[in-house]
């Protein structure tokens, strides 16, 4: 079983490995002994990898979407085609996407990142374009009438006013990426998906590892959303006044 082969590299997770422990013997749901013991060699590295996977995917996805959104916003005829393309990437199931990419990029982190980035494009693209389009026409007219150039109008008026929608997209994309990144372990031994897959791979489903790694993923998603919500409030003070 491939799960077991992977286990060999993932560290000692078989319940009766090492010093016998009552909790582990009964395959308990929350054996603090095991969590303490393997925080540094399993859980913490997986968490950090997971954050890395997410930050890189969200970051690259945002930059690409931002450029696409400027194009789709300025040249309306391109909005449709770009939308269809990003929509398409969004609808392919992630595992299928990984497999489709393997012939091109191999069984690597790159494959995972490409799939994760492709997944975020749709969310970002739509939200940025909608945000830019939500700027009221009279605001644009007064900007122009007061002598702002196109670039000044974009950076000083259109983009700031699109912030609420952009942040909504950022929050959705980040949470979604954190969740999908667990599936990356289907391909590589990176992220919180690795211990989850390990636990699933053990003969009688190692409860503590499954719960801890899964719980960390949920906690990570909640924390990220909370932090981004705080950042959003800080950079959109005018939305709090209504």
């Amino acid at each position, binding site marked *: 079983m491939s799960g077991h082969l992977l286990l060999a590299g993932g560290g000692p997770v078989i319940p009766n490995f090492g010093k016998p422990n009552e909790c582990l013997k009964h395959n308990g749901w929350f054996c603090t002994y095991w969590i303490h013991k393997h925080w540094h060699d399993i859980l913490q590295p997986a968490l950090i990898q997971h954050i890395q996977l997410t930050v890189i995917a969200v970051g690259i996805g945002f930059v690409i979407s931002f450029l696409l959104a400027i194009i789709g916003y300025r040249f309306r005829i391109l909005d449709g085609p770009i939308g269809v393309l990003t929509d398409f990437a969004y609808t392919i199931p992630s595992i299928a996407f990984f497999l489709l990419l393997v012939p091109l990029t191999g069984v690597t982190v790159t494959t995972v990142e490409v799939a994760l980035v492709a997944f975020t494009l749709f969310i970002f693209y739509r939200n940025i374009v909608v945000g830019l389009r939500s700027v*009221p026409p*009279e*605001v*644009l*007219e*007064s*900007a*122009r*009438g*007061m*002598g*702002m*150039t196109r670039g*000044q109008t974009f950076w000083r*008026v259109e983009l*700031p*006013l699109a*912030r609420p929608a952009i942040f909504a997209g950022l929050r959705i994309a980040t949470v979604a990426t954190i969740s999908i990144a667990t599936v990356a372990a289907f391909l590589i031994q990176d992220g919180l998906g690795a211990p989850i897959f390990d636990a699933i791979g053990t003969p009688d489903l190692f409860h503590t590892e499954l719960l801890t790694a899964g719980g960390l993923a949920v906690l990570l998603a909640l924390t990220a959303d909370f932090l981004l919500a705080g950042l959003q409030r800080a950079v*959109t*003070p*005018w939305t709090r*006044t*209504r």
Partner: protein
Amino acid sequence: MPTEAAELVFDEATKVYPGRDDAAVDHLSLTVPAGEICVLVGPSGGGKTTALKLVNGLIPLTSGYIRIDGRPIGDYDVTELRRSIGYVIQQVGLFPHMTVEANIGTVPRLLGWKRQRIRDRAAELLELVGLDPEKDRKRFPAELSGGQRQRVGLARALAVNPRLMLMDEPFGAIDPIVRARLQDEFLRLQHELRKTVVFVTHDIDEAIKIGDRIAILREGGKLAQFDTPQQILEAPVDEFVADFVGRDRALKALTLRTLGDLELAPVQAGGADGLPQLPADTNLRDALAVLVAERTHALVVLGSDGSPRGVVRREELIG
């Protein structure tokens, strides 16, 4: 505050939108002397707003000239031109994400003013338009009433002390009571600032109240009459203008004068008993309305100290 103002000339100014046969503005020629308010008024389709936007290049001219202080607008850099002209629109168009102070500082920032200078200028302007510099400068547009927003819009347009102001139905979306107050305050301001103003409205009463001169545009952007409010009301050049100003134009003409402008008969002992009393700055139309309502033939005019200045009879009032 400097009070320089520009002279604005429309010289055969014409706008034909692409794909249209008829002009939106058709060979418009008129001169707005420096420091005067010219109101463009007329039915929709008359090209008032188009004519206004030709001045700051928001809509390009098809043919003809518009000159500011003798220099055709085509000779100016268009962004510099716009920064030098105050622009106020009906929906105000304040930037929702900027505070009142930042909104007012828009053009000063574009021109590279120092922070402190912008702050001082914003405070000065807020005071000028009747807002509280301390309380209101850090508020966002969403926290203001419609009337307050339009005051900020006016302050923003005045920020770099422009020599020319373009105002496109600035009070159009505001309820009648606040609108009347804003009109009064605007006139008081203009009395101090003496800007050259082009003011678009579809409301003939507003035109009569605000304008030093009124340009009435008919459909197809043709100038029907360009005259003082008095002349427009007393001598409309044709049926169209007469219709547009309305059957009550004689009454409207009464709004142009106040009781204080009339010759008053002295108050005789006991002669003023029971007569209505009105301050001298009441316009003649309102005074007539009081005479009608009270069913009297005369009224007492009060001085600014509230003491009777004299008596006016109905015949003198409408004569």
